[in-house]
């Protein structure tokens, strides 16, 4: 029983250490290297892309256990245990889980050429269209409400 508990504790500690390691990797996303790409040269021009990056994660774990007098459910006491009166049962268990997300979106392209340095923004047409449709829907709803009110 003691060995089992030790194994669970050791595994839980390992999981925690792995989680902390993962957290350190997460913090690396806060560096500018995660946002700006490596320069790509093409002819006289050099291109660098700039992106917005978001990363999030969480993890958790737990262990628990207990002992009870008498044989555990489904177990029978050995003759030695019956003789000595040292009948006991119980168990330990543990578990953990985690989750996370990451998102990257291009924001601009930086071009360095003979004419100088230019920053060209990147438009996400899908996101803009979705925002426009949502805004248009809410405007139509408001206008219909205004008309209803003005009738009465």
């Amino acid at each position, binding site marked *: 029983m003691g060995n089992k508990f030790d194994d669970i504790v050791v595994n839980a500690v390992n999981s925690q250490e792995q*989680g902390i390691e993962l*957290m350190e990797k*997460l*913090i690396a*996303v*806060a*560096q*500018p*290297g*995660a*946002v*700006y790409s490596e*320069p790509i*040269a093409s002819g006289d021009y*050099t291109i*660098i892309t*700039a*992106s*917005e*990056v*978001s*990363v*999030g*994660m*969480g*993890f*958790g774990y737990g262990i628990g256990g207990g002992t009870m007098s008498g044989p555990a459910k489904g177990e029978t006491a050995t003759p030695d245990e019956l003789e000595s009166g040292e009948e006991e049962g119980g168990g330990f268990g543990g578990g953990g889980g*985690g989750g*996370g997300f990451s998102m990257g*979106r291009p*924001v*601009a392209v*930086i071009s*360095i050429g*003979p004419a*100088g*340095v230019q*920053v060209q*923004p*990147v*438009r*996400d047409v899908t*996101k*803009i269209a979705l*925002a*426009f449709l*949502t*805004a248009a829907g*809410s*405007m139509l709803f*408001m*206008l219909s*409400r*205004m008309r209803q*009110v*003005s009738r*009465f």
Partner: protein
Amino acid sequence: MERLKQMIGWQTVMGRPVTRGDFTVTPQSQALTIRWPNGGLVWNRPVAILVERGGQTERIRIVDITRVLQWGLLGFSLVLGIITVVLTVLHRRNRNG
């Protein structure tokens, strides 16, 4: 307060300069870091580039057009909603006397 500072960080970081011809471009980014005991969140976005040429430095802002338009449309919808509510209330008051 100190613990809050350890949990939440907002910093502007300079990247590795890139030199091409006469130009030296230094990228600048802004990162929001939120840490809690069993996890964390990082939001990193490009802010500007510093262009150095002939001893002169120029700062060029990087504007996120998509984000600006999204917030603009949201703001416009909110303003329209507030105007509608105000007009509705005024109309009811006038009708009731």
